[in-house]
């Protein structure tokens, strides 16, 4: 099963799939949304039910888990390799989760990412927002290619 908006990675590699188990003959699947507004959740749910039905499991219960909140740190090494191979720079370490107020960041973004095309580290963020909620837009200063970056959270 893959993310409909990131079809190069599986739901497991993305950290969206939290658990699969059988309870009293029912396949219980737990998934967690990435960003609150991610429009792919409904499709993922329907895809999972469909795939399990096709595999012969008649009773399927796909449950949403909201807590703990999804973090890009849950993306597996394989998921990161697949993202980079598909032209999307994988996220760096997620910002530390503190319990207090979130400090304001006024300077230019300190996020860094290697260019997935040429591998250069000399890249610059052109926008914190891109084609889907989970990505930022960057440009490589070595090969000049624009690329997307799965942003940390």
């Amino acid at each position: 099963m893959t993310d409909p908006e990131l079809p190069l990675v599986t739901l497991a590699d993305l950290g969206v799939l939290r658990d699969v188990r059988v309870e009293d003959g029912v396949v219980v699947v737990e998934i967690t949304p990435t960003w609150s507004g991610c429009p792919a959740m409904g499709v993922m749910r329907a895809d999972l039910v469909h795939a399990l039905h096709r595999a012969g499991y008649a009773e399927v219960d796909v449950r949403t888990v909201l807590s703990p909140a999804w973090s890009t740190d849950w993306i597996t090494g394989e998921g990161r390799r697949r993202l980079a191979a598909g032209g999307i720079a994988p996220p760096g370490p997620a910002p530390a989760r503190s319990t207090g107020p979130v400090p304001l960041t006024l300077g230019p973004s300190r996020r860094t990412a290697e260019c997935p095309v040429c591998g250069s580290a000399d890249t610059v963020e052109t926008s914190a927002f891109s084609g889907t909620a989970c990505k930022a837009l960057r440009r490589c200063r070595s090969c000049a290619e624009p690329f997307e970056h799965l942003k940390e959270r």
Partner: protein
Amino acid sequence: MHEETVYDALDSAHGGEGQWAFGTGFDEPLAGVDTTVPDGIDPADLGEYCLMLGDDALVLAQRLTEWMTAARELEEEVAFGNTALDLLGQARLLLARAGSVGVLGRSRERATPSIPDEDALAYFRDPDEFRCTALVAAPGGDFGQTMVRLLAASTLRLAVFTRLRDSRDPVLAAIAAKGVHELTYHRDHAARWVLRLGDGTPESHRRAQAGVDAVWPLLADVFSATDVERRLVAAGVAVDPAATRSEVTAVLTQVLGQATLRVPEWPADVPPRGRVGEHSPDLTALLATLQGLARQHPAATW
């Protein structure tokens, strides 16, 4: 191939009856989440509070969406779209939470039964049933004013959400914990633009200052708690907006100061207005756009 599977799956998930045309999704966003209300929490108050937070997000998302096809740079249009989408996601979860405790106002009388609660609440409540503040309902103005309003609204919301992560309602706490990451991006994006505009050219400075002067009077009731909020603060569920005052004023003062913008005098506190359903005609006009089509075709499917 993949799309075929997706639409096949969606169709079968809905019994081949089609999906309500104006809804935000294909399934109830809290599906499988334990929505039991913990002991000692009044479900009616909890639902009303979820409407306050959900309506702020829904209405601000609509205001930001007004920039679609109108922003001067593609990147900024995408930024508005993403910010609005995050807020819409938060609104969906919060309105679904209100629905899960039976707080639906008169929306269920107007919406057809197949429409999910969160959509019934979004599309089939009248303006006086909305609980958003004037800060998000006021027209956006130019780009500078839009960014000043986004800065103020996301600073306030982030300050509330960071505290709400400790709410005794686990659903509200989980929605807040997710939202904090999104609101941090929104606030920092708006702050950088206010900095750039205020400390930019004489024209950008003039317009950013005009934006500040237009937005500041809207802050008069943002720290005033309703009776519902007071009861829920005592029950460990809600955040007292007054508790965020020093953090919010410090952030806004810092950004405006660095942007070489004059910080207007903070307006004197007034009792809650939008939170108790008192709105200007601006909200009526906004809802006419947001709800018009769904109300004209309440049973439309695709």
